[in-house]
């Protein structure tokens, strides 16, 4: 640059990148071979998801009556006050108190609750993953993070087998949280310990037929 303003860091970095790539034709586009599997055959996705969730120390049950199963899980855990996103009906909670995030609960308020009940956007069977996209039945991200117990309801039609199948169902403009089992660490001698900062208990109810 001759005279004028000194180069901004952006211009400087971009100029360095272009000079570093002087050997690369500008109109080239490196082809990406996508010979990996998009989908695969294998055991039933519900069976596979259960297997993988159990492997990661999540509690899993296949249910047909959602409301009854949620109430039963909450009673078993003695969870009385729960964060509940707007899309989850009161009827699921039975005896327990539904605490709505409206106006938004503070982190301290969330910390005082016994847990959270949500749905999900997608579940990936092969990896035992549940993906939340902050939809009405899931709420904003803090809801499923601060309380120590997360009860998540997964419908059969939300389960895919592979990661590529999940990606194509997800909308990147939404905040996404991928959850595979409860919070864990392997930082001490690579011994896996479940339960650090996120919910220490993840319970998944898979709805296998219409409630």
């Amino acid at each position: 640059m001759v005279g004028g303003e000194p180069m901004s860091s952006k211009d400087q970095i971009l100029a360095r990148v272009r000079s570093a790539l002087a050997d690369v034709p500008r109109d080239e586009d490196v082809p990406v071979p996508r010979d990996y599997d998009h989908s695969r055959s294998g055991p039933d996705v519900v069976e596979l998801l259960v297997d993988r969730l159990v492997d990661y120390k999540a509690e899993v049950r296949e249910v047909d009556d959602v409301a009854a199963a949620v109430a039963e899980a909450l009673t078993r855990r003695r969870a009385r006050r729960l964060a509940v996103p707007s899309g989850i009906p009161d009827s699921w909670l039975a005896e327990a108190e539904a605490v709505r995030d409206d106006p938004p609960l503070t982190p301290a308020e969330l910390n005082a609750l016994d847990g959270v009940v949500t749905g999900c956007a997608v579940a990936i069977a092969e990896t035992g993953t549940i993906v939340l996209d902050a939809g009405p039945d899931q709420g904003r991200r803090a809801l499923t993070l601060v309380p120590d117990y997360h009860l998540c309801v997964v419908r059969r039609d939300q389960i895919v087998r592979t990661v590529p199948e999940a990606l194509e169902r997800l909308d990147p403009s939404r905040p996404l949280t991928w959850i595979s089992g409860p919070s864990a660490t392997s930082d001490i001698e690579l011994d896996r310990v479940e339960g650090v900062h996120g919910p220490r208990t993840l319970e998944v109810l898979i709805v296998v037929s219409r409630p």
Partner: protein
Amino acid sequence: MNSFVGMPSFPEASSVAVGDAQLRHNLRKATHTIRAKRAAVVGEQPDWAALREAGAAIKDRTLRHLDVYLERLEAAVVAAGGTVHWAADAAEANRIVTDLVKATGETEVVKVKSMATQEIDLNAALADAGIRAYETDLAELIVQLGDDWPSHILVPAIHRNRAEIREIFLEHMADWGRPAPPDLKDDPRALAEAARLHLRERFLSARVGISGANFAVAETGTLVVLESEGNGRMCLTLPETLISVVGIEKLVPTWQDLEVFMQLLPRSSTGERMNPYTSMWTGATEGQTFHLVLLDNGRTSVLADEVGRQALRCIRCSACLNVCPVYERAGGHAYGSVYPGPIGAILTPQLRGMAGPLEESLPYASTLCGACYEVCPVAINIPEVLLDLRAKAVTHGHVGQRLAMGAARRVLDSPRWLAVAQRSAGRFRRWTPKRLPGPLSAWSDTRDVPVPPKESFRQWWAASR
């Protein structure tokens, strides 16, 4: 506190580590455990080779047109309500982040484990400005409390065993917040629980979070952070202001590309089918203020090297560390940077240039066995880059090495000189020393000096023809 400036050369630093039996035991146990886990979950993925090929191609596609994707990413992040900053070097990145934190009026920040912020020594820069940075990843917490250096990309406290960690918690947690319970046991469960309690209040009251990112999607402006404990989610979600410092090589062109890396990274890294938590967000999310700091800090120099640029494909999985016979014995600290192991041996000298004895020695910190290349999920040919860097160390390296190589070339170039050299070597073979003199002793200290043969092949040929 912990700075890698003025580190000794690799052979010097590693000889200390090799003599530490406890360290070698910890490292061996850890690397062998994780190696087996990785092998098992990679083995169950039938299309692994195709994923690896795609991963390498996606990264090459990005790197070879990085300017295009950087501008695309900036536009997408800005469109989603974020602010993008460009930092040419560590000093500029630190200045940008410090100013952003100061503007919030806060004097404390919570941090997600991030290689980029370690590389620029952000915590020290923040401390100089009166801002305390709290590391929240369990291993980073152990390193921070122990005023120590990270020694592994994925598990930075891999060199510490449970008893040592218990001591560190009991002694230092109180300096940083809630003290450890006095009756703390040394089982990992109790130690993790102590960390949970120690950091809980800090998370709930944090106003500023600082992170890196594993991936940044140019097409959508989406940032991705993979983690295990939930400390990442805490730092990314709860604070009102989020600042992410991201190396310019972290980009991938499209949303679809994540389908490859979300399979390659967890299996290569922790040896899990999927890590417990991954956060993906685009711009200012759920009312947050979001700043993205794009960091060069030597990456464009790496990019300029046609052989060495493949090192920028690295997704920091650390699989190469866990299979490396040299890393297993020398430990992470000997590599003198936040990037240890085989990838560090090629990345550090390229990022910093052949700046001193450490950088010049790193390309030799390898047996060239190739295990690192084999496990690399983005197929970085580490041995190839090591050899190329060795050639550069010789060309630009210190005087003694240049003189020796120059002399060797003169002799090997001329049949006459070679014959003279071989004849005299044979004649004086009785005087072959056990230990070579001066700086050459470094070589003979760990090897037997070969005794030259009585006669050279050419002498033998001439005599027996």
